[in-house]
């Protein structure tokens, strides 16, 4: 609007008012209006005012009565309304159809991993909505009933609502004021003319506003009913829209509207009630009105006192402001309701482990994505990324990388292994999983992982069952596969524990036809000194014959340590016989020779020669090491060797291990002298223990007996023993002491043949004995 036109529109009525208000005298003077005319005009104005006010008053009363009646009986329009029940049912059924659609959306979202729409985000809401949609009407009615109860509570404060609604708010006082002002203004004075105009305008304005406020409240109250009906009918749709994020605004809006319309009335009634309480309990308002009637005092202005004016303004504020505030507050509460729902939603989720379930679900989903579905048939349905990896490995295998499949499968097993390992299962738990595996309830890699765990912990079943478990695992994985190697290492790590609890079980297991398993078992037996027969030792040597030198050496070293456990070679004397037995396996004899050499059991030329031949000749490292040890620790054995070597220079057959040059058939004085010279040279340096350690074959040689006897005699001659006398023991001479010390060694290492020799020496030496 153009500024000038605007100014005109305002200024003209102001001018007219000003004329009538401020320029009565002037107007009177200008227009020559006399007091009679004033009275006529006033009466006209009052008359018009009266008509208008009576119309307004009537309407006000009707509206107030209507509103009061409506407020009283509003619950009848909200409870058990047939059309609402019927329509709600229709919408509920319609909404239920959407659940299927929403499930499909969730499924697709889960597959394609749409954040916010997948199952982990929506399932709780879906279930929540699915359950409560059938109670949406009842839930709405709960809130409506609360609203009705609150409204009735407010209404009960009013008493006679119709009278108090109009009277308590001072609307009747308006009418009174109107009447009084007209009577006040009946005196023909300039001041009353002025005040009549003012009061006419003011009263019309206030009354109109009051009427509009009441009409608005009435209309809102009436309109509330169909709105609430509509919201209740649409409530199933609101619950449906709660599920999906994109439709959730409708849900929020529905609650905002529902709360707004439901609770606006009690809040409005509360505002009215507060106004009623304030206005109906102010005695000074009446006094103020009286002052106005007296028309005295400064407060009288334009026919109203200022307090009266304030009274009416307050009434307007309560009427208009109360309606606006109640609408605003109730709709704000609706918004708060949705926030409350969100808080309840979050609390419920936490309380019922929803975040935990979501996390677990996420992990499970990741697992399914990686390894596919579990089970024999489900696994074929969806193999996950694992199936793809295996396909890739298969192709790589076809293209030349032979170990690709083996490595890929080993990797898959390792993944399953890590999963089971994290569970920290005990034997019972793994037994249970093994049972499932045997029934085909576990996939291949899970089965292998379980078996590997059992192997590591030594929980493979004992006896035949365990053997079957191991054999089937290796066969299924492939004898030469990487997993089979891992599995065998795991078995070896626990020394096959339960599967090889007894020696019989160990030997049975070692008889398996699966070569990798056989080798693993045998290695373990060797490592744990469980090889107890030369037959087993032979079998072990056969199995490892084609392995690398490193492996072979390790096996031989282990068997060598085992050799004194063999039934056939447990005792010292038996070992010597075994060594010299040509029917025994040379590989085993070689190990025995090595051990005997280390233990100082090579004590004759025959044993030395046999051992040297087993080592590959006297020039071999082992042979030379053996000889060095003999020189240091076994002087008479060395003497025997030297004797034979010297003899060998004369007669080559003397070097033969089985040839005995000093046997009755072969001996000669020359040979005996040669041998005697050798032992005579060594004997002085030999103590009793060393003498005892001389091989019994040498002891049995007459030459040895002679030389030893001579030594003892010489000693005794140098320091003879004294013969015991009465009351005195004999003092042992040097020879006797020598015999005493040799005899002492027989206590720990008895040998009847040696003792017999010594006894003969004692008898022939003449030494007093004991």
């Amino acid at each position, binding site marked *: 609007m153009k500024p000038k036109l605007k100014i005109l529109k305002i200024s003209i009525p102001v001018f007219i008012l000003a004329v009538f208000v401020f320029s009565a005298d002037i107007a009177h003077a200008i227009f020559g209006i006399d007091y009679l005319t004033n009275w006529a005009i006033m009466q006209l104005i009052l008359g018009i005012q009266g008509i208008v006010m009576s119309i307004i008053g009537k309407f006000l009363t009707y509206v107030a009565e209507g509103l009061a009646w409506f407020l009283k009986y509003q619950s009848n329009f909200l409870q058990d309304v047939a059309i609402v029940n019927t329509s709600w049912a229709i919408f509920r059924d319609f909404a239920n159809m959407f659940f299927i659609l929403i499930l499909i959306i969730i499924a697709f979202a889960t597959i394609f991993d749409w954040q916010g729409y997948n199952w982990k985000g929506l399932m709780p809401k879906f279930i929540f909505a699915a359950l409560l949609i059938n109670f949406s009407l009842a839930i709405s009615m709960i809130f409506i009933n609360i609203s009705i109860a609150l409204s009735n509570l407010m209404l009960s404060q009013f008493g006679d609502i119709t009278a108090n609604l109009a009277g308590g708010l001072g609307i009747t006082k308006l009418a009174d004021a109107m009447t009084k002002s007209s009577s006040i203004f009946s005196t023909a004075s300039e001041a009353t003319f002025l005040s009549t105009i003012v009061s006419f305008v003011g009263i019309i304005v206030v009354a109109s506003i009051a009427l509009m406020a009441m009409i608005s409240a009435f209309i809102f109250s009436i309109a509330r009913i169909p709105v609430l009906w509509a919201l209740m009918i649409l409530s199933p749709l609101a619950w449906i829209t709660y599920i999906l994020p994109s439709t959730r605004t409708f849900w929020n809006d529905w609650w905002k509207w529902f709360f707004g319309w439901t609770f606006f009335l009690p809040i409005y009634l509360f505002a009215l009630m507060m106004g009623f309480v304030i206005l109906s309990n102010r005695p000074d308002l009446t006094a103020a009105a009286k002052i106005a009637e007296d028309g005295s005092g400064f407060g009288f202005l334009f026919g109203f006192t200022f307090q009266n004016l304030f009274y009416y303004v307050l009434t307007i504020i309560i009427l208009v402001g109360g309606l606006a505030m109640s609408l605003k507050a109730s709709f704000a509460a609706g918004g708060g309701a949705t926030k409350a729902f969100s808080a309840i939603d979050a609390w419920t989720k936490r309380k019922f482990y929803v975040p935990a379930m979501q996390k677990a679900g996420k992990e499970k989903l990741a697992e399914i994505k990686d390894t596919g579905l579990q089970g024999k048939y489900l696994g074929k349905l969806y193999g996950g990324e694992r199936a793809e990896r295996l396909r890739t490995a298969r192709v790589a295998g076809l293209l030349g990388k032979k170990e690709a499949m083996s490595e890929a499968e080993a990797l898959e097993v390792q993944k399953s292994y890590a999963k089971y390992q994290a569970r920290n299962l005990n034997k019972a738990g793994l037994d249970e999983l093994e049972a499932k595996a045997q029934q085909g309830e576990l996939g291949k890699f899970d089965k292998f992982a379980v078996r590997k765990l059992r192997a590591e912990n030594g929980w493979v079943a004992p006896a035949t069952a365990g053997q079957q478990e191991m054999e089937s695992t290796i066969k299924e994985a492939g004898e030469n596969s990487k997993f089979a190697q891992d599995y065998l290492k795991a078995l070896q790590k626990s020394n096959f524990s339960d599967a090889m609890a007894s020696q019989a079980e160990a030997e049975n297991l070692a008889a398996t036809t699966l070569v990798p398993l056989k080798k693993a078992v045998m290695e373990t037996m060797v490592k744990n000194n469980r090889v107890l027969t030369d037959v087993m030792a032979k079998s072990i040597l056969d199995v490892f014959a084609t392995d690398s030198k490193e492996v072979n050496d390790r096996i031989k070293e282990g068997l060598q340590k085992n050799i004194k456990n063999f039934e056939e070679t447990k005792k010292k004397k038996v070992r010597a016989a075994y060594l010299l037995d040509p029917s025994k396996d040379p590989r085993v004899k070689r190990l025995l020779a090595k051990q005997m050499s280390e233990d100082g059991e090579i004590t004759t030329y025959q044993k030395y020669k046999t051992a040297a031949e087993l080592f590959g000749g006297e020039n071999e490292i082992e042979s030379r090491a053996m000889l060095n040890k003999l020189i240091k620790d076994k002087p008479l054995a060395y003497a025997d060797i030297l004797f034979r070597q010297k003899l060998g220079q004369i007669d080559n057959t003397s070097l033969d291990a089985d040839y005995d040059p000093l046997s009755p058939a072969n001996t000669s004085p020359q040979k005996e002298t040669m041998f005697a010279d050798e032992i005579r040279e060594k004997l002085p340096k030999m*103590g*009793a*223990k060393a003498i005892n350690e001389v091989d019994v074959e040498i002891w049995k040689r007459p030459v040895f007996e002679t030389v030893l006897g001579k030594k003892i005699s010489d000693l005794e001659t140098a*320091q003879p023993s*004294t013969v015991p006398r009465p*009351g*005195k*023991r*004999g*003092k*042992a001479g*040097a020879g006797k*002491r020598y015999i*005493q*010390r040799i005899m*002492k*060694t027989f206590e720990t290492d008895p040998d009847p043949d040696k003792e017999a020799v010594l006894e003969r020496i004692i008898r022939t030496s003449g030494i007093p004995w004991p």
Partner: protein
Amino acid sequence: MVNIYSPIEVDNDTLLLDDEKHELFYSKISSLSQNIQDLLFSIDTEEKLKNVSVQLRLNQKQTIELTRLVRDIIIKDVYLGDILKEAQKRLSLDETAARDAANKIISEIFSPALEDIKKLHIEKFGKKENAPTQPTANNSNPNNMINLKK
């Protein structure tokens, strides 16, 4: 079975396993006078040791130590003047009991060759001033000294 009352045989179990020690022992014996050697090989010595063991109520271990002590003093491995100290230490006896044991050893066991033993000890160990004394039960030696000259 080892004869624990025989100073010669008491350690046969260990001596006979060690050629060198055995010979050394006998060389020590051979260096002694016949009188003292007889003490070692005398069955009477064994009887006396048995009696002393019974009188002093010694257990087997203490008896063995008693025999060893006697042997070691005879072959001059232990100084005669240290007999009280050694008796206390080896036999795990209090001073009174050790004094009693030492008295008996000297008066009963060494008596046949006591002078020879003293002489040999002086030769080997020389005079020792303020050495532990020959313990006497009746305090006949107020200065509490073994007089090796006597």
